């Protein structure tokens, strides 16, 4: 069950988490609670898997390169193929989508050469062709995501 404090932490600190020696105390001061309250609320959010982490979101393609990759895999083999792909440390997200191209994942690497090598290896291991979709332009200025948690 999310408390008001949980909701405030989830919604209000996606963008400008304090960069100060005592960030959790600064948040506590802003919200009129204690530093201990904020620390335990974040611990609960972590324990319940509601947050991935507190950290920086970095401009794409400034440190390393990445590409979205799509594959078309027969349904009965999808789980097995997905597991093989997920095992690569260079793959971070791997989703099924409702489409002929039903497997979508993101590969990241230090450079394009390594990226290509990972894709080649995945194609070889799964024997399905991979469609590579690198990013050309990013229109979205990511300011986080406004959650409507009113009814949760």
């Amino acid at each position, binding site marked *: 069950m999310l408390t008001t404090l949980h909701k405030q*932490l989830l919604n209000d600190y*996606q*963008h400008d*988490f304090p*960069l100060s*020696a*005592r*960030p*959790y105390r600064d948040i506590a001061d802003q919200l009129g609670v204690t*530093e201990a309250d904020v*620390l335990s609320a974040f611990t609960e*959010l*972590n324990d319940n*898997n509601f*947050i*991935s*982490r*507190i*950290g*920086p*979101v*970095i*401009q*794409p393609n400034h*440190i*390393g390169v*990445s590409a*979205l990759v*799509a594959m078309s895999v027969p349904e009965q083999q999808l789980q097995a193929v997905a597991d093989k*792909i997920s095992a690569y*440390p260079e*793959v*971070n*997200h*791997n*989703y*099924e*989508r*409702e*489409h002929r*191209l039903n497997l*979508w*994942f*993101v590969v*990241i*690497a*230090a450079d394009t050469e390594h990226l290509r090598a990972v894709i080649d290896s995945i194609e070889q291991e799964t024997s399905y062709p991979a*469609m590579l979709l690198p*990013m*050309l*332009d*990013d*229109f*979205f200025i990511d*300011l*986080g*995501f406004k*959650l409507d*948690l009113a009814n*949760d």
Partner: protein
Amino acid sequence: MIDTKDRQLLEHIQLGLPVCTRPYLEIGRLCDMPEAEVIERLTRLKQQGLIKRMGVIVKHRQLGYRANAMIVWNVPDNLIKQLGGHISRFPFVTLCYQRPRQPEWPYNLYCMIHGKDKATVLNQLEQLVDACGLSAFVREILFSHRCFKQRGAIYKNTAPTDVGATLVAQQHEAAHLLGD
């Protein structure tokens, strides 16, 4: 520009800021850097825009946002910037990118909508199409189904010429692309 120390710092902080009274001190211990320098470097990287945002990265699925649609359009190249900019202004759009067309995949404009259910997402898409004048363009909607993997990935560059430059891609793209 970022230097080796920035990279080391990002490598350590990408796994998440510890939940404790002096988290930047803890990060500093991991990369042998004083707390003040950790804060100073992160502040600079954010001012420079390399860090797009610094904060809580939520798990949408766990918070009830289970309908995640990737919508792809084939739009004329000369309109893509304008359309991408317009689409990005809608609060329910969580990302918007241009990617290259492929032989059997004619789409060049991508956007993602996270919603609590499909009906809401389709409704929002309709608003978007009307407001941005997208109805004339061919599109497809791909809802996510199973999530096989969802985490920040770390890439360490082990090339011998790159000693000390452990390269980390704490991927913004990944974090948002497929519906974290």
